[in-house]
């Protein structure tokens, strides 16, 4: 698919296939089109040409909320909490709108997720009072609450410490073991390389390299894109 902003080609004829249950890494320097790509997949933006097929179904003309209901969930690079709500309430939104659960049942399941992600003691805290790290965890927790089959994590680990990165990685590994396909966008190379089975590197809206993590780091194009000529 392709996506332009005015005369600027953010994505030009990018083609990617992700297998069910895969752990897929998406890397590339700043401005290479990673976030645009997942914005198109999740429906925040509409792609101009090409198609997006999820589970055998063309979804590229569906509004974002319907894609979420079909099983595509995402976190945002810049956290976008529902700031007027408590942490727990943030998770109730997807529970009520994706799975149509009653509030009592939704709260029970939301607490379960918060325990797993380590935010249980903050459940009643207004989300406007969270730290950066907690906000990132909330992003992930809210995406998990939508019960996705494909989870797109957009730099969920930016700004986290080493042990926190490990924590989040473990959560993502667990989700994957439970059968959820995961696309990870990350600048922390160590994390992407450890996590992904397959990595694609974008540069200036094009795929410059695709393969196993070990091969990617050795690829001269990738090194050039990141370090300059």
């Amino acid at each position, binding site marked *: 698919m392709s996506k332009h902003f005015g005369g600027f080609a953010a994505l030009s004829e990018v083609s990617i296939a992700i297998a069910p249950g895969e752990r897929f890494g998406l890397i590339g320097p700043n401005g290479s089109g990673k976030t645009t790509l997942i914005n198109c997949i*999740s*429906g*925040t933006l509409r792609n101009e040409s090409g198609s997006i097929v999820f589970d055998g179904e063309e979804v590229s003309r569906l*509004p*974002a*909320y*319907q894609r*979420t*209901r079909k099983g595509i*969930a*995402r976190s*945002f690079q810049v956290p*976008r*909490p*529902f*700031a*007027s*709500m*408590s942490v727990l*309430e943030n998770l*109730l*939104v*997807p529970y*009520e*709108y*994706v799975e149509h659960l009653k*509030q009592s049942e939704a709260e029970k399941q939301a607490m379960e997720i918060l325990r797993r992600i380590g935010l249980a003691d903050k459940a009643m805290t207004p989300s406007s009072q969270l730290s950066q790290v907690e906000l990132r965890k909330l992003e992930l927790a*809210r*995406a998990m*609450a*939508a019960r996705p089959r494909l989870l797109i994590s957009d730099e969920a680990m930016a700004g986290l410490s080493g042990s926190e990165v490990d924590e989040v990685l473990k959560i993502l590994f667990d989700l994957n073991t439970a059968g959820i396909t995961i696309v990870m966008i990350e600048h922390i190379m160590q994390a992407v390389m450890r996590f992904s089975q397959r990595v694609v590197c974008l540069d200036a809206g094009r795929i410059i390299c695709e393969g196993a993590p070990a091969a990617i780091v050795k690829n001269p194009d990738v090194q050039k894109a990141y370090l300059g000529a």
Partner: protein
Amino acid sequence: MKFWISAAALALFALGLALSPVNEYFFYVSYRVLTFVVLATAWNILGGYAGYVNFGTPAFFGVGAYTAVVLFQWLKAPLAAQIAGGALIGGLLGFGVGMLTLRLRGIFFAIATVAVIFITETLMINWRYVGGATGLQLLRPEVMAPFENYIRMLFVVMAWMGIAAVAVARYVQDSWIGRGLRAVRDSEEAAEASGVPTLKLKLFACTVMGALMGAAGAPMPMYLSFIEPASTFNLDYTIGALGSAIIGGMSHWLGPIIGALLLGTLQQIITVTISGEVNVLVVGVLLVLFVVVAPGGILGLFRKWLPFSR
């Protein structure tokens, strides 16, 4: 349960008051104040919960009033039918305006709603059947049984309408709809990503708001025994609805009630004791004060002591 008992008690109290020998002037003034309770409550459903600022209150209110006039002139429709008609047309206008403008965000949406006032007002100015620019005198029908005169009856009608409007706002706020609307206000992208059909929810809020405002406008021609465009599509309604919600607090259904009662009463007192111009000035100063000093409104100031406010 507590809410419904107090609502019923208030409804009965209003009825009792109208049948008591209280001075006529009280009902004349209270009707205006109660109108603002309905308008502010309606405004808050879209403006407070979803964060979409609507400047077009007079359009919805005016369309309700003119619908009542048409029904009255054409079919001699009773007041209840006029109100139902006002609500219907107001709701339709809300839906239509929503369809056209709710894809716009922030200031662009607000400007579009201002345009709706001018469009509806211009239409009425050029429509002879409802009196055009000069307006139309209306002869009130006989008042219904227990009431002594028409103003007392309208007072009760508006009080009941206020209770109904608040019940609707309270339901919207406490249900999953309210949570969805707040998600829209906080971040539309994140709301969509959480499965919230943002456009549908906004349309719903805009339609309900329009219907309630239309209903609030419907008894106005009978109240004045007169209708004309300039005062019907007056920007005072914009300021009254939005100002009451901001001053009272937008996060809870109680806010617009407190704001409207306070602002409406204050306006009446100032208009009578000083002048209409000072009245506008005071509202302006109050608005600036609240926006700067207490953005959460009166409810926000007392948040710590109120168990329910979020």
